[in-house]
């Protein structure tokens, strides 16, 4: 039995029946990391001792007949979620030696549910990127084809799940950073509604857009993870005071009622979009047929402000970033450069040495958009456009339950292909970033494999706080899709 390839659901059953132990499972993952991570580069930090100790503790609890939703399950975390005593770098040299003194709420919830934290995964620095090439440490490679990117910014979390170095992981999504790498790596990623999962202890990039969510091998596993991490947290004033449902009941709803009666909207602005690869278009058309065969009614909807989404996003996100990243001043935490001439010079030397090129580019962009004389023209205008985009989705959802589209316009591109061309890289976020602007949930579920053996994903968006419809449709699709990618050979 390949322990590393188990889903959460499968592993839980084997753990409960004592056929396997958590130490077996965690050891299988650590062996897998030893064997393959030198070429994949999914992890920044592996907490071998901590993981084995937590696994032994889980086994002791299992031996006493205890149960918890993730008891003994090995999970990896994107390296911007604070973990007590385990360094949290955010993919940045400026936080290379930062060791948090507290757990992010999502991490505390995973631990309380019995999860074993294996380590911290690679990412574009502070979440700024779509390829994980912007990490301050190393590039992560796509387990399906090592010459290609895994997507980003949660590329390490997605690659670790696809390469079976963990059973599941957490990522974060500011403009598609869970869904796009999940799509490129042939697995499942869910960005919950803004406010559904506490952001406390998540190192901020763009606070009005960031959201934490699961990256898993199946939709069922994503629902199991959501049951653990969702819910109100008094420590995050933007976390919603709404009760979280049992997300796995959305799977039961499909099993008992299928998808008949559900309406899926396809935005007319997304069809025939420039830059959409024929292979992605074909995979999406096939996916649409699968949903139709399940009884889903397809309707045309309109998101009239789609053409402005990328531009508005790349004003708002860098603006928030330039403000959020002001805290890295070489005083409270992080590296401080020596040999500075006074305080201002110390700030400048510390920040220029600590931040990579994409982060500095976005800080400059954001500073410009917020600076005197340009605020109304850039930030103000982009924020008003965001209101229009939110209204577009509200109106579109009057006529449908979910909205479907490809996740990314192309399969994963080659490493190095877009490094010096930030704008092309930004445009690849077109299908995903509107969901962050509107604060709605979105799921990426595999829907095909390209001629070059690279996976492609179907995106299912839902109304605010209606992850249930998204999970139900995604699960229905997953159970019925003819060409599921399986797992890559390493």
């Amino acid at each position, binding site marked *: 039995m390949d322990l590393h390839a188990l889903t959460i659901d499968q592993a839980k059953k084997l753990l409960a029946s004592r056929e396997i132990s958590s130490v077996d499972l965690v050891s299988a993952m650590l062996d897998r990391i030893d064997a393959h991570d030198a070429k994949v580069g999914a992890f920044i930090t592996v907490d071998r001792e901590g993981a084995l100790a937590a696994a032994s503790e889980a086994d002791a609890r299992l031996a006493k007949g205890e149960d918890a939703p993730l008891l003994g399950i090995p999970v990896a975390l994107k390296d911007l979620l604070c973990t007590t005593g385990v360094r949290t770098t955010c993919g940045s040299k400026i936080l290379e030696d930062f060791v948090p003194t507290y757990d992010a709420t999502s991490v505390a919830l995973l631990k309380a549910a019995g999860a074993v934290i294996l380590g911290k995964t690679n990412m574009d620095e502070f979440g700024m990127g779509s390829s994980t090439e912007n990490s301050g440490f190393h590039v992560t490679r796509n387990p399906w084809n090592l010459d290609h990117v895994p997507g980003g910014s949660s590329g390490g979390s997605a690659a670790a799940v696809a390469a079976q170095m963990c059973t599941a992981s957490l990522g974060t999504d500011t403009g598609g950073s869970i869904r796009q790498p999940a799509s490129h790596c042939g697995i499942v990623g869910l960005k919950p509604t803004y406010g559904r999962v506490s952001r406390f202890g998540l190192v901020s990039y763009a606070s009005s857009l960031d959201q934490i969510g699961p990256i898993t091998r199946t939709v069922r596993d994503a629902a199991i993870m959501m049951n653990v991490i969702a819910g109100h947290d008094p420590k995050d004033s933007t976390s919603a005071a709404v009760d979280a449902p049992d997300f796995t009941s959305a799977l039961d709803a499909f099993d008992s009622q299928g998808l008949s009666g559900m309406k899926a909207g396809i935005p007319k602005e997304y069809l025939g979009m420039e830059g959409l690869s024929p292979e992605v278009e074909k995979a999406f058309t096939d996916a649409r047929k699968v949903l139709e065969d399940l009884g889903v009614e397809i309707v045309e909807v309109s998101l009239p402000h789609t053409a402005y989404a990328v*531009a508005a996003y790349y004003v708002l996100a860098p603006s928030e970033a330039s403000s959020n990243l002001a805290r890295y001043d070489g005083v409270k935490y992080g590296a401080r450069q020596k040999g500075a001439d006074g305080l201002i010079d110390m700030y400048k030397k510390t920040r220029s040495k600590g931040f990579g090129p994409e982060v500095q580019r976005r800080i400059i962009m954001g500073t410009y958009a917020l600076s005197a004389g340009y605020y109304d023209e850039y930030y103000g205008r*982009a924020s008003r456009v965001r209101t229009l985009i939110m209204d577009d989705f509200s109106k579109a959802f009057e006529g449908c339950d979910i909205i479907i589209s490809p996740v990314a316009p192309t399969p994963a591109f080659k490493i190095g292909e877009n490094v010096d061309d930030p704008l092309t890289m930004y445009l690849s976020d077109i299908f995903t970033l509107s969901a962050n602007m509107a604060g709605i949930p979105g799921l990426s579920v595999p829907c095909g494999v390209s001629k070059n053996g690279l996976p492609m994903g179907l995106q299912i968006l839902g109304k605010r706080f209606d992850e249930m419809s998204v999970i139900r449709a995604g699960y229905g699709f997953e159970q019925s899709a003819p060409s599921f990618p399986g797992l890559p050979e390493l």
Partner: protein
Amino acid sequence: MKISKEDVEHMAHLARLEVDDSLVEKLSTQVSGILDYIDILKNADVSGVPLASGAALQTNVFRQDKVEPSPGPSVTLTNAPDRDDDFYTVPKVVG
């Protein structure tokens, strides 16, 4: 919209970044390219449209103003690159 090298240097100073000459050149080209693309926003009719507020919550959030236990300076200052007892230290600010 072209952003000049002087603009880049000014923004870098405001953001407390030190950019060398070769980087200033590259940044001014790249940021100008991005700003050209962002100019598309000028075509959007935003008259009378309010600024976007929180992405999900439409109401303000209140909590009791109650003192909670805090970790204290010995924990909070753990990651300080330079400290003196319970204080952060910084390079000399005034002459």
